[in-house]
C-alpha cells in the first residue's frame, strides 16, 4: 500500500467514507460546472440573437424593450420577431436534446435518437400530406405534425415488439419506418402545387422562420407537463442504464418505467417538431456531447437539454447571418454540422466493438 509511504496528515488518514464522499463530490462538481457553463452560454446566445442582426439594437434598449418599453422600430424587431424566435429555439432545442438523450440511454444505442429512427419523419410526413394533399391551412399543421410523430412512434413500437422491446430491433425498424415516411413526404411534394411546396418546406428541413408568439404555448405548455414527468422517471432511467435485469434486481419496475419514458421522449420530439420542424441531428448530437462534457456522471439530462438549446440558437443565428445574403433555415445548418458527428460516432462505436 502506498499509504504507508506518505506521512499521514494530522487528522489521520481518510476513512473509506471520506474517500467515497470525495469521489462523489468530484464527479458531481464536474456535472454541475458543465450545466452552469452551458446555461450561461445559452443566455449569451439569446442576448446575441436579440441584439445583433441585420438591424442592431443596443443591449440597454433590449433590456428596456423586455421591460415593456416602446422604442420606434426596435420593439417590433426584438419583441415580435426575435424573442419568439429565440424562445422557440430554446424550447425546441431543449426538447430535442432531452428526447434524444432519453432514447439513447434507454435503448443503450447512440443511433436510437428520434431523428434517426423516424419519429420526426412521421411528423414531417403527416404535415406535408395534410398541407399538399388535403389542403390544410399551414398554420394548423403543428397539431397534425404532433399526431404524425406519435403515430410513427406507435408503428415502430408495434413492429419492434417481440414480448419486450429490444434496442437493436427498435433502431433497425425505426430506420426502415423513417425511410418509408420520407418516401411518403417526397411523393406528396412531387404531386403538390408549387405554392403549397414552399409552405411545406419548413416540414422538411426544420426552420424557425414562422416562430410567433401564438405558437409558443403549443411548445411550452406541453414542456411544462413533460419535464416534471421526466423528473419522476429519471431515477428509473438510471437503473435501466445498467441493463433490464440489473434494473429489475434493483427494484425498478422495468416495463412501466420504459413505457413511461418512451411516451415522454416521443412527446418531447413531437412538440419540438411541431414547433420548429424536423431540425436535423439536434436530438442525435446533444446527448453524446453532454455526456462527453460531464465525463459519464449520471444521465446528463440537464446538460443534454442545454446543449440542444445552444445548438439550435447558434445554428439558427449562423444560418441567418454567416452565409452572406443567403439565409439558411436552421435545419440545414444542423444537418451540415450533424453529419460529421454521426460518422464520428459510427466509426468510434465500431472501433471499440460496440456497434450495438
Amino acid at each position, binding site marked *: 500500500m502506498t499509504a504507508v509511504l506518505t506521512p499521514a496528515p494530522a487528522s489521520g488518514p481518510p476513512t473509506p467514507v471520506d474517500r*467515497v*464522499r470525495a469521489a*462523489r463530490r468530484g464527479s458531481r462538481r464536474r456535472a454541475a460546472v458543465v450545466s452552469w457553463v452551458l446555461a450561461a452560454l445559452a443566455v449569451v446566445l439569446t442576448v446575441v440573437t436579440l441584439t445583433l442582426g441585420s438591424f442592431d439594437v443596443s443591449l440597454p434598449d433590449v433590456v428596456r424593450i423586455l421591460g415593456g418599453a416602446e422604442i420606434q422600430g426596435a420593439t417590433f424587431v426584438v419583441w415580435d420577431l426575435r424573442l419568439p424566435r429565440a424562445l422557440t429555439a430554446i424550447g425546441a432545442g431543449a426538447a430535442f436534446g432531452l428526447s434524444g438523450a432519453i432514447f439513447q440511454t434507454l435503448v443503450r444505442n447512440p443511433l436510437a435518437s428520434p431523428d434517426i429512427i423516424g419519429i420526426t419523419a412521421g411528423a414531417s410526413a403527416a404535415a406535408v400530406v395534410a398541407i399538399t394533399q388535403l389542403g390544410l391551412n399551414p398554420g394548423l399543421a403543428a397539431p397534425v405534425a404532433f399526431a404524425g410523430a406519435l403515430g410513427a412512434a406507435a408503428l415502430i413500437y408495434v413492429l419492434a415488439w417481440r*414480448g419486450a422491446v429490444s434496442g437493436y430491433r427498435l433502431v433497425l425498424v425505426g430506420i426502415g419506418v423513417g425511410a418509408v415516411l420520407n418516401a411518403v413526404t417526397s411523393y406528396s411534394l412531387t404531386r403538390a402545387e408549387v405554392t403549397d411546396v414552399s409552405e411545406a418546406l419548413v416540414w422538411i428541413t426544420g426552420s424557425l422562420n414562422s416562430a410567433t408568439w401564438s405558437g409558443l404555448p403549443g411548445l411550452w405548455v406541453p414542456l411544462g407537463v413533460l419535464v416534471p414527468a421526466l423528473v419522476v422517471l429519471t431515477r428509473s432511467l*438510471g437503473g435501466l442504464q445498467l441493463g433490464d435485469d440489473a434494473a*429489475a*434486481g434493483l427494484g425498478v*419496475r422495468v416495463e412501466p418505467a420504459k413505457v413511461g419514458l418512451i411516451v415522454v421522449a416521443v412527446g418531447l420530439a413531437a412538440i419540438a417538431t411541431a414547433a420548429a420542424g424536423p431540425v436535423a441531428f439536434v436530438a442525435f448530437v446533444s446527448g453524446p456531447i453532454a455526456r462527453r462534457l460531464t465525463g*459519464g*456522471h449520471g444521465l446528463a439530462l440537464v446538460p443534454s437539454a442545454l446543449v440542444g438549446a445552444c445548438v439550435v440558437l447558434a445554428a439558427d443565428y449562423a444560418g441567418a447571418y454567416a452565409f452572406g445574403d443567403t439565409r439558411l433555415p436552421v435545419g440545414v445548418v444542423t444537418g451540415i454540422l450533424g453529419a460529421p458527428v454521426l460518422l464520428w460516432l459510427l466509426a468510434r462505436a465500431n472501433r471499440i466493438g460496440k456497434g450495438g
Partner: protein
Amino acid sequence: MADIEPQDPAPGHHTLAASGLSLGYDNRLVVDDLTVTIPTGKITVIVGANACGKSTLLRGLARLLSPRSGVVLLDGADIARRATKDVARVLGLLPQSPVAPDGITVTDLVGRGRYPHQGWFRQWTPQDDAAVADALDVTGILDLADRPVDELSGGQRQRVWIAMALAQRTDLLLLDEPTTFLDVTHQVEVLDLLADLNVDHGRTVVMVLHDLNLAARYADHLVAMKDGRIVAEGDAESVVTAEIVRDVFGLHAQVVPDPVSGTPLVVPIGRHLRRRIQTLV
C-alpha cells in the same frame, strides 16, 4: 457493517424457496414444476449443462420472470405480490452481463446499488455513503473509487459489480455466473470474496457456476439440474459423483477427492483418452 437498515426486520433470517415452479420464454418451457428450498445463511450453487434452465431458475427466484405456474416464496410469501422495491432491499441480483454506462466512476456505479433505499423524500444520505464505502472496502476496490469503470480489468470490474450488489445491503445475494470471462486466479478470488461475505456477514448466496470443481469446493449446498428439473441436491459429496456427472453433463469422468480441500474433484475422461485406456487394457 454494524448498522442495520431500518426496513430490515430480521437480518440473516430471510428465506427463499420455490414450489411447483414452471418458467419459460414464449412457447418454450424451461423450468418444469420445480421445488427447491434455499438453505438460509449458506452458499448454494446451481450447476448443469448449457440450456438446462439454471440461469432461468435464478431469474425466476429473483422475480425477473413471472411463473407459468407455481410460486417463489420470499419469507414464506409469494414474491410476485410484494412491491419490487421492497424485495430489492432483501434480495440482490447480479445478472450475467450488466452494462456499465460509458465513463461512469466506480463510486457512482456502486452508488446505484442504493436505489431501493432511496425515494422521493429520501435522497442520498450519510447512510448511503457508509454502505458504498463498506462495499468498496469489502471487495478491496477502495483505491479505485474515482476511476472510470471502463478502464478496469475484467477481474476488477466484476468486483465493482459485486460491490454494487453489496451496497444494496441485501441478506440474499443471487449471482448468475459471476466468474465468466475471468481467468482462474480471478475466479478463485471472486469466489473467496463471496465465501467471506457468507462466513463473515451471514449472507445467503445463491449462484450459477459452470466449473464443477469450483462449485464442489465452495458450495454448502449443490443443486444439479437437467432439462429444467433438479436431478440431485445436497452437499458436494452426495451430488458430485461419477453417475450424476454422467447423467447431468453426459460426461464420462472419474471423481476423486480434491488433494487440497478433500471435496470431490471431477477428472474428465473424454473419448480419446478412453480409447487409449481400452487399447492399453
